[in-house]
């Protein structure tokens, strides 16, 4: 059941120069969310942005969700400017999330930038599993200093200003020399997802990816967020995804 709800911002923590963790109370939608689902926010009026903006959910605690947002345009600038007590109109749950992964399987979760969000949600339900979380960013401006993640989290940046120098794929490849996960799950920019798909093909480790596409409706009506499929034709990122098996989509 999709709902529209006027949420209340609980907190907005600037975790890095350009990375905000925003908690919003949405009692109707929050209990319906599963890892990999996303919500859409109506941008604040002063932003001048017309369409809603989709964001993966990073955590659900009771009636409150956490979003991980980087200001890249007028809508995200306005949303990262929200303060505790501000209202935000939210629609959700949207999209098909991750499948239920076996707790005995070892998953490597590879996140790029704000793509970390859905991986944090997925991981919050897998405490005690032998998973590993890799979080890559361009610079330290996109990665929080104190990384309070419930599993082993490994940070890397393209310029080496935080964590190891290199991409999260570089790190994964290094680890693969000595160990091997059962499953890879990834969310982030297209370049990262492409590299994950290639890695999955090379190593035969099954991979699930969560795609990021520009969307208009967010509910499968407009066919604007087309993702090309290996078998031909297109899927809709918003309704058929955003999570796909890496081998099924063309990136």
């Amino acid at each position: 059941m999709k709902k529209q709800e006027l949420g209340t911002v609980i907190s907005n923590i600037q975790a890095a120069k350009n990375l905000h963790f925003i908690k919003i109370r949405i009692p109707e939608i929050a209990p319906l969310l599963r890892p990999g689902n996303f919500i859409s926010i109506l941008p604040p009026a002063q932003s001048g942005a017309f369409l809603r903006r989709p964001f993966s959910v990073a955590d659900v605690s009771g009636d409150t969700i956490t979003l991980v947002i980087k200001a890249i345009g007028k809508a995200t600038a306005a949303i990262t400017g929200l303060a505790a007590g501000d209202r935000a109109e939210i629609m959700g749950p949207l999209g098909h999330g991750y499948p239920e992964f076996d707790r005995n399987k070892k998953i490597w979760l590879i996140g790029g930038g704000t793509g970390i969000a859905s991986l944090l949600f997925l991981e919050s339900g897998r405490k005690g599993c032998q998973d590993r979380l890799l979080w890559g960013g361009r610079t330290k401006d996109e990665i929080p200093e104190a990384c309070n993640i419930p599993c082993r989290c490994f940070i890397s940046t393209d310029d080496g200003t935080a964590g190891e120098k290199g991409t999260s794929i570089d790190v994964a490849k290094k680890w693969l020399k000595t160990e091997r996960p059962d499953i890879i799950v990834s969310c982030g920019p297209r370049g990262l997802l492409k590299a994950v798909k290639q890695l999955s093909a090379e190593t035969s480790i099954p991979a699930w990816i969560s795609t990021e596409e520009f969307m208009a409706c967010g509910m499968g009506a407009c066919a604007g967020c087309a993702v090309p499929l290996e078998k031909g034709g297109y899927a809709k990122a918003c309704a058929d995804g955003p999570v796909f098996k890496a081998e099924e989509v063309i990136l």
Partner: protein
Amino acid sequence: MNTSTKIGNLELKNPFIAASGTYGYGVEYTDLSPADRWGAVILKSVSPKPRPGNVPPRCCETDCGMINSIGLANEGLEVYMKEKIPAFRKAFPGATCIASLAGETLEEFLLLAEKLSEMPEIKAFELNISCPNVAKGGMHFGADGNASCQLVRECKKISKVPVWVKVTPSTTDPVGVAAACAEAGADAVVATNTIPAMKIDVRRCRPVLGNIFGGLSGPAIFPASLRIAYLIHRALPELPLIGCGGVDCGEKAVQFILAGCSAVEIGTATFRNPGTEQLCLEYLEKYMAEMKFGSIEDFRALAHRTN
């Protein structure tokens, strides 16, 4: 107060119609903007054969609107008749359903009209001769009065339901095209469709859309769409007219009615706020009460009065 309206002989419980291409197959918005709340819903355009649609990216935002180049992506007539229409009927047996027909040739339009006339759920056809995003058919029909005229005349011979024609704003003579459609027997004209447009990414130094060009929609196009509807009504006051383009609130919808429209399509605004049709209806009721209008006919085309 009565908010029902008539387009020719087709009666709608309110004047708000979900615009084709923005409302899927009528079930996607079940939770937030159910089909039976609308006066009617026009399902996504159907073509005889499946169409994968255009190369992504297919849409982007602009000031007060968006540009899309979906390319009439759809699964074709067979899936439409066997799956989409039955699913819609099951979910919303009481809703008024209109089919948008998208052929590349006259023959394709006729095939669609013939087959879909067999489906009693469909209460009218909207001929999409104004899509800017396809190489054949679409706008190339709609910009040419003679081609539009022949198409409508032939479709009228076959069709068992009213035939509406959605005309393009991209012609120097929209009134001429509407007149040709009326002459050929169109039961209503829908004014208008998206306006051809583009956007360039200054960092990538390339067009944003995979198809380079798309159709501009949203509040940005409202004043231009309104003008065309007004012009068509002024020239053809007897022709049932439906306004389309940029309506995102009741006040804009009322402007279309004052320009002469019997109904108003809402599309892009639904993406931003599913439930826009409900807000429009609430505004309309309040407006009619305050203005002491008992029916849509009481104020339709009132902006044309000369005294």
